[in-house]
């Protein structure tokens, strides 16, 4: 099976040999996505930009956000973290085993969030949820493990609280629409 290494897309990547995505068969690894911009901003804004980048990167290797099975989001501080999780939950149409980690810093001081992903193109996903936690029914980021073929991705355990997830936005998956606005996660 061929390994498909996406061409470098930003100048720094040509120095580091970093690729935004590597695809082997159905499996796609996506480098940590950040908001590349000069001006200072906040975590929710950077989350939207990182997600837009991720969508574009996935498209270049023939994948979509629906194929993502695992994410790890690294945050500088807790500020905006929950909103970021809710934004991601709205973006991913399917189940994702997602882990959130708070770190002291990312590689550039202006980066507040970095999101990396693993996708399986055309994945038939089986999903497991953890006992004791009660994620919003069918919502994306609220599952604990995803199985695709022989491989299972388990999200970080020990962070699920009932009230935490009850703030996550609900979506009408079947209709493909949303019933909340930009700030709907606080509703």
């Amino acid at each position, binding site marked *: 099976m061929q390994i498909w290494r996406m061409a470098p897309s930003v100048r720094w990547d040509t*120095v580091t040999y970093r690729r935004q995505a590597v695809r082997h068969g159905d499996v796609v690894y996506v480098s940590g996505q950040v908001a590349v911009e000069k001006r200072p901003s906040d975590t929710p804004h950077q989350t939207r930009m990182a997600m837009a980048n991720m969508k574009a990167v996935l498209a270049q290797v023939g994948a979509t956000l629906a194929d993502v099975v695992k994410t790890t989001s690294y945050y500088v501080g807790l500020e905006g973290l929950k909103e970021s999780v809710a934004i991601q939950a709205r973006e991913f149409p399917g189940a994702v085993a997602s882990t959130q*980690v708070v770190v002291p810093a990312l590689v550039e001081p202006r980066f507040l969030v970095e999101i990396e992903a693993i996708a399986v193109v055309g994945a038939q996903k*089986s999903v497991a949820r953890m006992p004791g936690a009660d994620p919003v029914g069918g919502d994306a980021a609220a599952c604990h493990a995803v199985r695709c073929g022989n491989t299972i991705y388990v999200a970080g355990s020990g962070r699920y*609280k009932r009230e935490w997830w009850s703030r996550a936005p609900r979506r009408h998956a079947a209709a493909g629409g949303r019933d909340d606005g930009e700030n709907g996660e606080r509703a």
Partner: protein
Amino acid sequence: MERMGSVLEQLGATLDDVVHTTVYFVTSKGWREAAQIRGRYFKVGPTSTGVIIPTLAEPGYLIQIDAIAVVGTPKQYVDPPTPNVVKELNLEVPFRQGVKCGNTIYTSGPVAIGRAGSVLHPNDIAGQTRVAMENLSRLLAALGATTEDVARKNTYYVAVKDYRKTVPIRSEYFKTGTCATGVGVDALVVPGLLIEMEVVAIV
């Protein structure tokens, strides 16, 4: 660990299918005991990386464990003779340095550790990076791969502002291009270590 076992069971797997864990500790206090508790749940393996971070998303939690499991595929585990944390600190846990599962290789994060848990190249991230890279090369060689087969690497820096010092060294090993995520951490499990890198390679 009990929760991990439970979600794996829901998906037709057991803890013996786990090939890799990434462990996030909020404090280094107790990490050794936590390693030993985790170790009791596994017979052979998995590969494992541990980092110390300021907090988890929900304050109060002290440990978070990510995992990848592979069902029904033979697993080839290796431990090259180079020093590693498990061996040098006599942890007596089943964690291994590398595993090949089908055509995918998962590794623990090689670090610049010396005999008896000493830290090589103290306060020298470039020196530590060189050791870690050589250890990674040997580890991958033991599984029939090279650093050029790496598809994804995750790097943890104790002083992330120095990460550019590692770029020229690491670039020598990854000329085919690889996915990369790099983040700062408060510390690695052995004080004095400055860089740890775990990888997934495809052969």
